[in-house]
């Protein structure tokens, strides 16, 4: 197990070098001059030339890449061109915001998706099954931005139940320690702020969690259907176990592996793919951090941001792989 973990971690190195090379090349190949973008469409040519010089954009591509990788090895993610500050210092609040949102979205997706899938499989071809699977189909094909705007319209504007934007009430912000708002509010012992932050999570969390929820529901259902038909389930039923125990304890435990795979993949995707949700709900997360950087040709931020997300993705999948053997002791590495 330990050897496996180390091997997987070592595999991370070529993956990340490859990632960095690809992003670095693509960004530099597309036309558009960062100095021009920074100075705006009303700047003079000399000003643009001066800034290029300052930013080292005149250096050959390989030298720029080499310098970047050298810094990376020393734990330096580079300096943002736009803000002129160290990325390693800037990036955490955005990352924490996205983590919080992703965790909420995945908790929502897993709880609703897994239960809907289990019940659908258990009551196959019932009205619940049909309704749940139709909803899941709609969920998979629903454009997030549309769902988000509809949610805002109904729950924020018309009903006034939930806030339409942001992570907290800007009139009463939470003092950041970890940048996880729910955690910070608890540390400060301010339950009202905790509740406000929680309410801010609901709409974007559900918008973001809808697609994974639908995928998880469908995956759970098909996986459960297979398990519930197997002989040992019939044996346990014959033994007189309660239905709940048969379904959850014996059935789901054996159906969980494919579901876990999907959960892992979806979590990774959400980390990098929350950009639409983050934009609609003004959520200051990593997706928007990188998006703004792209608009400003802030090369170092794009680089490092994508690299950080890629690393997360690889780590999450590693954790999922390790969880397999925990859940199913028959799996050995």
């Amino acid at each position, binding site marked *: 197990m330990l050897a496996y973990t180390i091997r997987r971690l070592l595999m991370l190195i070529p993956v990340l070098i490859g990632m960095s090379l690809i992003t670095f090349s693509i960004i530099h190949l597309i036309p558009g001059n960062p100095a021009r973008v920074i100075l705006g469409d009303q*700047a003079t040519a000399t000003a643009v030339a001066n800034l290029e010089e*300052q930013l080292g954009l005149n250096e050959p591509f390989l030298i720029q890449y080499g310098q970047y990788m050298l810094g990376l090895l020393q734990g330096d993610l580079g300096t943002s061109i736009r*803000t002129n500050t160290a990325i390693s210092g800037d990036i955490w*609040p955005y990352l924490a915001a996205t983590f919080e949102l992703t965790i909420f979205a995945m908790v929502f997706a897993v709880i609703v998706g897994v239960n809907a899938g289990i019940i659908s499989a258990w009551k196959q071809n019932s009205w619940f099954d049909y309704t749940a699977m139709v909803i899941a189909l709609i969920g998979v094909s629903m454009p997030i931005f549309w769902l988000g705007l509809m949610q805002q319209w109904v729950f*924020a504007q018309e009903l*006034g139940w939930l806030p339409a934007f942001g992570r907290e009430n800007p*009139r009463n912000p939470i003092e950041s320690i970890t940048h996880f708002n729910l955690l910070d509010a608890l540390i400060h012992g301010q339950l*009202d702020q905790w509740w406000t932050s929680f309410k801010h999570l609901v709409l974007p969390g559900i918008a973001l969690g809808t697609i994974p929820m639908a995928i998880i529901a469908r995956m759970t259902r098909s996986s459960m259907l297979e398990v519930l038909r197997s002989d040992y389930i019939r044996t346990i039923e014959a033994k007189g176990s309660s239905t709940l125990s048969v379904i959850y304890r014996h059935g789901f435990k054996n159906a969980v592996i494919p579901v876990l795979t999907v959960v892992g993949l979806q979590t990774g995707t959400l980390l990098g793919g929350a950009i639409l949700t983050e934009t609609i709900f003004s959520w200051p997360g990593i997706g928007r951090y990188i998006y703004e950087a792209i*608009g400003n040709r802030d090369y170092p931020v794009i680089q490092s941001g994508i690299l950080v997300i890629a690393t997360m993705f690889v780590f999450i999948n590693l954790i999922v792989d390790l969880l397999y053997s925990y859940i199913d002791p028959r799996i050995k590495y």
Partner: protein
Amino acid sequence: MRKKSLWLIIMSLTLVLFLAACGDNNETGGEADNNNNAAENDGNNDAAVNDGNDGNDEGNNNDGNEAPAAAEDQTLIFARGGDSTSLDFASVTDGETSRVTLQIYESLLKFNQDSFEVEPGLAHDWDISDDGLTYTFYLREGVKFHDGTDFNADAVLTNFNRWSDPDHEFAFIDEGYNYAVYGNQFGGFQGDEDHVIDEINVLDDYTIEFVLKEPFGAFIQNMGMSYFAITSPAALEEYGADIQENPVGTGPFQFVSWDRDDRIILDKFEDYWNEGYPKLDRVIFQVIPDNSARLTALRSGEIDIMDGLNPDDYEAIANEPGLQVFERETNNIGYLGFNTDQEPFDDPLVRQAMHHAVDKETLIGLLYAGLAEPAKNPLPPAYLGYNDDIEPYDYNPERAQELLAEAGFEDGFEFDLWTMPVARPYMPDPSRAAEVLQENFAAVGLTANIVTMEWATYLDEIETGAQDVFMLGWSGTNGDSDYFLGNLLSTPSIPTSNQTFYSNSEVDDLLTQARHAVEESDREQYYQEALELIHEDSPMITLVHSIPVLAGSDRVQNYVPHLSTSEPLTEVELSE
């Protein structure tokens, strides 16, 4: 049993989720207009956090609170589409930056609430010598920077040196600071031949004198610009290049915190020189990128003012109870430029013909919901020298075809119509505009192929002259006509801002004369003549001057949008 307790946890979590979704109305209402925390806000300026109002935020419902004339909570949330790039006004040009720095910083002069006329700012008075070379400013006494240090003539000198001398200790050139605006507005930097400021003399603590090399008409206008505001020298010393994240000025509000791409918080400056102001205790500039999400937040009462109202929503919002709309006077030009170096657009007849082919009124009706005026000059109407005698190119397809025939293009021709990928105040929906224009041109036998590319690429390519006909615009910042005409249509500005490559030595001469004329009437005369020539040559189809609109809660009082894109919120207050 382990699994059973897990199941219990899952169920209770689900219940919490469900309850959250059905949150009680009063509680969010309390969040939106939270009345009781104003008092605690005062003076709390060292942290973004307001520890004083624990507990009264959520539970505060408004039942039974009779409305006072002025709301107790004077926190204003101003929502906008994008963040500031820096809080150092001098080294960046975007409007989202000056919107914020205008609250923190002040210049020697300022613009009148609804025009570009200059008024006393940090200087309460000024003299101009008869030869137009010496400007003396008398500074306000007793003005404090937010860090407690005194504002005086030395501070002004330090700031001007910082921008004009690349070797100055506070220039921070190596850290990426760039004072392009200073260079543009004052003809370069110290040592440059065209730099208009010869020397700056501190006469006493509160008197400072600027000596120019030659008369320079726009000088006094420039002194009102937000780009030339005064930063505390002590803060420059303390923060160094980090000054852009720790702004310290003399303005009505002082900086509290900045979360990038999220929000900037400013608090009332208690020692502000203009006693009784500002009225607000706290201003929050909140980024909400999505236009419709911003409108939803306004309607649900979570924000007070929103920038960038979609023209299509204007009517609805104007009639909605509880909301109001604000119009910003027009200060821009949206145009369709010709590459005058390229055939067939090097022929003035072709350019005039195409100008006649465009139906500006329909464009305004379709895209701007009427919130724009057709342009006949490449200069907004409020500017010195705006030539109202010019007979606009009317929408006249027959005339267009005649002119094309005269130029030898009876059968028309095909060209690329470069279309901006992003919306700008002067062009809210470029791709739809392109379609309308395409039809206009088709009606006179011309085939326009709509071409578009990513914004940074677009700007880059246009400089190289790869375009045939392109869409672009220009917005004013200081009310100086030269800022439009000199940048857009004079030979020295090719290709950075003059992308029509239009070069007419007569126009160049007139613009130079106007720049150095001291008498306003002379300058007006020169500009009007130049506009006459430009009109004849038609290097661009002047499409529209658009009127940007904002929306706000009707609690917002005394908010007057300034035509320069930003305005101080000194007098704004919230009523109940």
